[in-house]
């Protein structure tokens, strides 16, 4: 029994169990309804051989990455300003609390009209998905900076500008980082929706388009790829944060629950 509590043993056993259940379900319902592990594997090989799978993964990842980086770069200064300047906050907060309930997917048609059917509309959508989460988290972080730290800095001779640079921003880093990690998750959700409706490539396109050929195995391949990229990028961002931002109190690379 002691062997079971070992992390790697239990993880491997869990996945073997999942695959077994999957195989049994596939046997009961047939390959058209639930393609089994083997059928899915064959579908994946097929997609890998014609090169489409890797390029779809690449294009989806590229869209998420660019939109996510740009969105974060805009969101952080905005969050800092809203958090730091009371008069801006009074006007911005009600608006933020209104707009953050509108999911990115709801904007797809409008973004297509505004930014065209090319890459811009998809990247704009990811930026939107990233912007509000990172902004809200940064804002929360700024408001959570302990008054004693600001007071200490002030009586040590720091100017308001120095307080922002040397106290508020470093104290807010863990909040920004949490926002950025959460935004990665919502970005994947948004891009799949966008690619289903308006794209000729990408994982969302693969999943949606497979219905035309009734290739449920390809759909499974798309789903599994999504899960894997999401898992690995989140872990990577978590590890980078732990390595680079340890000083600022970013200590865990474990997945964030929400």
């Amino acid at each position, binding site marked *: 029994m002691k062997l079971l509590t070992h992390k790697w043993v239990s993880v491997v056993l869990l996945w073997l169990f999942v695959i077994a259940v999957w195989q049994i379900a596939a046997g009961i319902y047939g390959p058209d309804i639930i393609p089994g592990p083997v059928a899915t594997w064959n579908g994946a090989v097929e997609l890998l051989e014609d090169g489409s799978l890797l390029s779809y993964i690449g294009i989806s990842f590229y869209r998420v990455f660019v939109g996510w980086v740009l969105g974060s770069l805009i969101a952080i200064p905005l969050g800092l300003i809203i958090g730091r300047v009371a008069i801006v906050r009074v006007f911005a907060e009600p608006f933020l609390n209104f707009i953050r309930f509108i999911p990115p997917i709801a904007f797809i048609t409008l973004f297509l009209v505004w930014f065209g059917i090319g890459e811009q509309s998809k990247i704009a959508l990811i930026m939107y998905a990233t912007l509000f989460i990172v902004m809200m988290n940064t804002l929360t972080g700024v408001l959570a900076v*302990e*008054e*004693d*730290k600001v*007071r*200490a*800095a*002030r*009586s*040590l*001779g*720091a*100017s308001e500008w*120095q307080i922002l640079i*040397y*106290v508020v921003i*470093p*104290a807010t*880093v863990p909040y920004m980082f949490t926002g950025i990690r959460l935004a990665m998750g919502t970005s994947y959700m948004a891009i799949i929706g966008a690619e289903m409706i308006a794209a000729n490539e990408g994982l969302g396109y693969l999943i949606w388009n497979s219905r035309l050929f009734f290739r449920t195995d390809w759909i499974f391949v798309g789903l599994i790829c999504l899960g894997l990229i999401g898992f690995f990028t989140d872990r990577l961002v978590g590890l980078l944060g732990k390595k680079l931002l340890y*000083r*600022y*109190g970013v200590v865990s690379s474990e997945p964030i629950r929400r």
Partner: protein
Amino acid sequence: MSLPAHVIEQQTITIAGLNKSYSTKQKGELHYIIQDVDLSIKGGEFFVLLGPSGCGKSTLLNMIAGFVAKTSGQLQVGGAEVRKPGQDRAVVFQQADASLFPWLNVRENVEFGLKMQKFAKARRKEISDHFIELVGLKGHETKLPRELSGGMKQRVQLARVLANDSHILLMDEPFGALDAMTRRSMQKELSQIWRQTKKTVIFVTHDIQEALILGQRIGIMTRGPSSNITHIYEVPFAYPRDPSSAPFLALEKQIQGHFEHEYSI
């Protein structure tokens, strides 16, 4: 060991008829947190503000620091009215975790004020080396605050304000969260450092023994609201003080009696 006259004057704190009040929204009544405080502290003095929790000691300290604006009255440091925080008055906060910068190591925390004033790096190191050694943190320079014990964190706070060369130290129950043994040794060291550096110290506490170990004078604050300083005890004992000596115990008992008398009303 005495300070030059002009330095004493620079650090003199004069408080007269000082009030801090707020009015309630519904009735417009004035509520006083502290009312009609008169106090004069001379440069180089170690003054203790002693009183029960919630008596406005911290409010008074924060007003001297310039964090909290007064409602009315006079509050002067070195002859100038206090309007905002200034480098002449440094604050050692009760909660080290809330006031230290956790992303900076010990040395960087100590050098914070110097960096803000754009001291050259070599000069900063020279100064921080000196004060890190003075507070007994030599060898811990590169540790982050979260790697230190509570007592060590308060030492960092102390070194941070000493390095900044403020003449007046405002200390808000800095040893309140420490265990009894650490507290005793911190009191001893603070007393020593004060005698070496000749700073003006205002030290807030609710611990009578601590007040007697440290202070030259002890101002008793009444319980809030509308608290003020009702009585000032002179502590005539030489440093370092022995808390088990008969005169020490007698004065401790007398101050204890003072509070008991007040609360029995």
